[in-house]
């Protein structure tokens, strides 16, 4: 395959399909669930579960593979990123099961998302009050007791955590240590089905943006799951063995980030495009055309801003697609995924902030959605690894440094 920027027919159809879905089903309720924080967006959840998840057009074999997932994500988040995150999906928890689970585990936990029961959600619970980016500092414990693992601890910032912990059929993938002395090597991922005794929804965060999404604090008190809910192996690799470890558990779960970061980057691109599209339509409405060949002394500040925004957004999108296309080829993409995530988070933070500025008082008003997109966009600089964490990952890769040499 040569270098090509041409979307396959299938992906183009899918893009149009999801764009129409965003226009019809997300935009109309976007402000409503921004204001009604913590309410379940039933219109969307029910419709998506009954119809939205079905009938995606095109032939699967002829799509752009992982890039198509990015394209679809961009469209839905162009519609509303908060509602996208509240969609009944297997989510990050599903990605972890997909990446590190056995065949049996995949069947057991993921088939509900193809089924016709009530809506279900998957989520991942990693962060703790004193362990943000530093997964080695995880305090939640998993102790073996007979055939079970018993979890104890509290997780914060669990995206989708209400749905996943409460709605039957869903599950939360919980990261816990089975051996504190082993640091990172002792950390394992456990699938905790919704409604498991001992898993409690402590509360939901009040957030700057993506208010339609449920960011939960979950506590685990003697929360018991069967031993075969552990993803990967229970073997503990000590720190000095970590490099040579073939443990599909921790590494496999970590690898879900390489797969999920392009998706998260695509979410960012969707929000950024929403703001840019609005600005461009406003300019058009006022008869202002962007001149790509404007004489240098005559270019307006507005033109330059808009052109910069276009370039930044496209740069983020192309890095995102590049990271996804490497997955299509089965190539390791940890560097490229972090590049895409870092760039996209920063780019859409700037684009949405600029959009509010360019629109003046109207941009600041809740009469338009632009101010909301600024608030929504900012999450992309923060979750799934902050800007700084992704810079750190990129830096380690380009310098060929282990994490011990660059923290």
């Amino acid at each position: 395959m040569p270098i090509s920027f041409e979307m396959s027919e299938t992906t183009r159809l899918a893009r149009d399909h999801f764009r129409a879905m965003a226009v019809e089903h997300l935009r109309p309720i976007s402000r409503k669930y921004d204001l009604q924080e913590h309410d379940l967006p039933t219109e969307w959840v029910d419709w998506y579960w009954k119809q939205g998840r079905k009938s995606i057009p095109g032939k699967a074999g002829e799509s752009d593979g992982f890039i198509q997932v990015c394209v679809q994500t961009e469209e839905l988040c162009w519609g509303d990123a908060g509602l996208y995150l509240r969609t009944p999906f297997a989510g990050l928890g599903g990605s972890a099961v997909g990446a590190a689970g056995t065949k049996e585990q995949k069947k057991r936990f993921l088939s509900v998302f193809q089924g016709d029961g009530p809506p279900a959600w998957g989520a991942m619970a990693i962060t703790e009050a004193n362990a943000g980016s530093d997964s080695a500092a995880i305090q939640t414990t998993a102790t073996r007791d007979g055939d079970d693992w018993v979890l104890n601890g509290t997780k914060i910032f669990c995206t989708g955590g209400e749905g996943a912990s409460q709605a039957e059929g869903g599950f939360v993938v919980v990261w816990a240590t089975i051996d504190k002395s082993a640091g990172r090597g002792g950390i394992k991922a456990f699938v905790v089905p919704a409604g498991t005794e001992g898993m409690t929804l402590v509360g939901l965060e009040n957030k700057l943006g993506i208010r339609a999404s449920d960011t939960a604090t979950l506590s685990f008190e003697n929360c018991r799951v069967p031993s075969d809910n552990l993803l990967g192996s229970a073997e503990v690799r000590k720190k000095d063995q970590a490099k040579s470890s073939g443990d599909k558990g921790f590494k496999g779960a970590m690898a879900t980030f390489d797969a999920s970061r392009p998706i998260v980057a695509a979410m960012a691109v969707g929000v950024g495009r929403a703001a840019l599209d609005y600005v461009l339509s406003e300019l058009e409405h006022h008869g202002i055309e962007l001149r790509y060949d404007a004489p240098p002394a005559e270019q307006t500040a507005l033109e330059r801003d808009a052109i910069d925004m276009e370039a930044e957004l496209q740069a983020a999108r192309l890095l995102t697609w590049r990271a996804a296309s490497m997955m299509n080829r089965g190539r390791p993409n940890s560097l490229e995924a972090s590049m895409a995530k870092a760039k996209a988070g920063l780019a859409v933070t700037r684009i949405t902030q600029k959009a509010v500025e360019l629109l003046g008082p109207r941009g600041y008003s809740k009469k338009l959605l632009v101010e909301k997109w600024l608030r929504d966009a900012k999450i992309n600089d923060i979750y799934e690894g902050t800007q700084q964490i992704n810079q750190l990952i990129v830096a380690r890769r380009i310098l060929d440094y282990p994490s011990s040499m660059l923290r």
Partner: protein
Amino acid sequence: MLDFEPSEEQQLIVETVRQFAEQEIRPLAREADESGKLPDGLLAQAHELGLVAPALPEAQGGGGERSAVTSALIAEELAWGDLSLALAILSPGLVALPVVDYGTEAQQAELLPRYAGGSFVPGSLALQEPRFGADPFRPRTSAHRDDRDYVLDGAKCLVPWQEGDDTVLVFADEDGHPQGFLVPREAKGLRAEREQNMGIQALPTVELRLEGVRVPAEARLGGNEGSDLGALVTRGRVALAATAVGVARAAFEVARDYAKEREAFGVKIAQKQAIAFKLADMAIEIDAARLLAWEAAWRLDQGLPALREATLAYQQVRRVALEAADGAVQVFGGHGYIRDYLPELHLRNARGFAAFEALALV
């Protein structure tokens, strides 16, 4: 002689206001933002400090000590506490100061004593307009002379609209020249709709529609002489630059303190160069922006043209405040996105400076 240290008297004022901001304003900021309401009693308390009245002429019961520099110092401290509440506290100046600068004797005699009195009286100034490319120097709201009246038509936004007053100062275009008009809030044809904005949620502001609003010729600010909108916007930019410095400093300090508390990978995150250098940049930019704001204020006090300096200062500090607030969110990481902490509030407020004009005056 060049010098950049407030006088002893100014330092005393700053100290008092800073204490007020810390003890009375900051603790109320979050709740006020969430509820979209001004806290009971705060404005009366602030009034007792005498933040606006000293700038009014002695003839009308004021202190006769107008100083843009002092006003800038006060504005920064108040806004450090909270931007919405600072703007509410400073709102009397929105009407009082233009009336001092341009009002006829009758207008001064009628309006000024209330601001110098014992109780807090807010002010409303209608300048910005809810349209693309809104231009504070060239309002599109129009004023037509009709016999002994003026008839106003158009739309305004970001108009502070606290309870307790009955007048709004509206700027409109009269035959190609912007002029101010003192309009009763109850005037026929005037509709005020409470705004919802991304930030400054505690400050009640409205979008105004003016349809054939009729006021007598005497309502024209400055009577036949009129007023100078360019100078007013300049004073607004200085005041807003100072408040933006306050917001930026608040974001910086909150981020700095958090970075010194929070640990990751076994050290305080402030010990990480990426965080430490970000904080250093904030500190440098904030100090620079403050000096630019002071220079513009000083020029006003000297009676020198200050549009250029005020604009430089405002443009810089808009950027600086946004970057400081955005940077604070980054320093806080996930907590920066949560409404239990201040950075997201600072971010929402800081971005407002892209839309604000003359929401405060010096």
